[in-house]
């Protein structure tokens, strides 16, 4: 049987390598076709801005907990964190994927325009705040004010959602399997039609989640009542 040789994995230990050097090497790899495609980062020690600004189809595994803004502004790369993430993981992601094996702090996937963010544990408050096209799948629960001012994209929560889900939402599809503590301003429950059930199944499959029944999800989205100022409301101001 023919065996393919495993591609080389470049290992960077943040205990000994400065973070800027790691990020600079990852950025340079985008320009150099012969440079390693697979990277492994050890001892992140809660550092901020690990593997940010990637712009190439690299695979980056981070072994441990990271601080703020991990994998921010990602394009094309597949980043997997084997630990927990601080504030703003995968913020403003454009494409590619970011997978968090642990939990994520507040504002996970903030302002993301594309790609897939998967959080295997819980996400904290403001998950998907101002999302603009990213897909976010949370295996656990999300905190309060998730998908605040969401504009585009999909947030799928396998567990529960905290208070004020989808507050001041423009557009975006929100799905929750568990209890929703409350919907935010202008966010309403919407009918689950066949295309939405298909969308739930597709997101679960892409996130590699096979132990959640896609039939239990409910859909939430914009009532579109805040789009325009209504003269009848003038007295409110």
């Amino acid at each position, binding site marked *: 049987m023919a065996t393919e040789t495993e591609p080389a994995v470049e290992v960077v230990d943040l205990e000994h390598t400065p973070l800027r050097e790691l990020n600079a090497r990852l950025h340079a790899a985008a320009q150099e076709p012969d440079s390693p495609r697979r990277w492994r980062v050890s001892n992140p*020690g*809660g*550092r*901020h801005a690990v593997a940010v600004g990637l712009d190439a189809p690299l695979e980056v595994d981070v072994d*441990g*907990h990271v*601080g*703020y803004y991990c994998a921010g502004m990602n394009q094309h790369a597949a980043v997997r964190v084997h630990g*927990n993430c*601080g*504030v703003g993981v995968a913020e403003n992601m454009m494409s590619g994927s970011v997978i968090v094996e*642990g*939990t994520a*702090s*507040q504002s996970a996937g903030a302002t993301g325009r594309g790609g897939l963010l998967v959080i295997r544990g819980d996400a*904290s*408050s403001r998950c998907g705040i101002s999302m603009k096209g990213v897909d976010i799948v949370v295996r656990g629960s999300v*905190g*309060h004010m998730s998908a605040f001012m969401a504009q585009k994209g999909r947030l799928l929560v396998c567990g529960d959602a905290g208070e004020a889900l989808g507050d001041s939402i423009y557009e975006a599809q929100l799905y929750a399997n568990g209890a929703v503590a409350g919907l935010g301003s202008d966010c309403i429950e919407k009918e689950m039609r066949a295309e939405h059930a298909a969308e739930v199944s597709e997101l679960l499959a892409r996130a590699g989640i096979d132990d959640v029944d896609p039939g239990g999800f409910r859909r939430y989205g914009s009532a579109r009542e805040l789009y325009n100022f209504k003269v009848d409301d003038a007295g409110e101001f």
Partner: protein
Amino acid sequence: MCGIAGLFAKSPGVAEQLGEHLGAMLSQLNDRGPDSAGVAIYRDPVPAGASKVSLFSPDPRYEWGRVRDGLAGAFDGDPEPEVRASHAVFVVDAEAERAEAWLREHHPELRIMSVGETIEIFKEAGLPSDFVRRFALEDVQGSHALGHTRMATESRVTTQHSHPFSTGLDLCLVHNGSLSNHNRLRRELQREGVTFQTDNDTEVAAGYLTWRLREGADLREALEGCLRDLDGFFTFAVGTADGFAVLRDPIACKPAVLAETDDWVAMASEYRAIAVLPGAEDANVWEPAPATLYVWERALV
């Protein structure tokens, strides 16, 4: 921005190195709060009837021997101070109230940082990692401790404006955030007889806790009252003789991470301050929920 660190020793090994661990945590929080730093350390309980007082003098050549001689004359015993940089800790053979009253009368030039049976507070303007060195935290042992690194947003950078703030016997408060109703609340508390030494917002929160506790509330009730009576952003850590408590406001913009192993319980603004603790990579790590009180005390752990 500001940084908070708290450490509670569950094993003798961690208690022996408490100051060293806390110093490592604070140094990680340098850039969250480069303006000033402070710690409250709980250790060496004094005998019943005695009290422990932490004092600060802005004069680097201050002669602490004068205070010692005065205390020895006024009370029994020989209160030799333990001097650390600009601070000195005295064990006075008198109840806290009498010791404090004597010091205020005879040494108005000194600032009383804390009074109690176990608490010691040290704080100073300047970079936290310098503070850790100047106050030689590495040789401090204790059962638990809180620390703070400050980035000032609403009042001056001085030692007096630094955290922790004493809120009563063996109690202290550190804060990350900003309060918006502190001026009105300060006036209300002043009418209730609470005194303030600065225009700092956190001192008002400390004064609020002092007042509620004085009026008969327990620590849990006093802290839960903060959710109703304080307007603004806060992650609080409160040190008590037996442990510490953590509370975040309902919006929870200000970060907090909790972690626990068989040897310690830690609280910090960011995980990187916990990562320096032994066994952190295998700790149970989680984010405290908004408007929810978390308490660790020796009797409970």
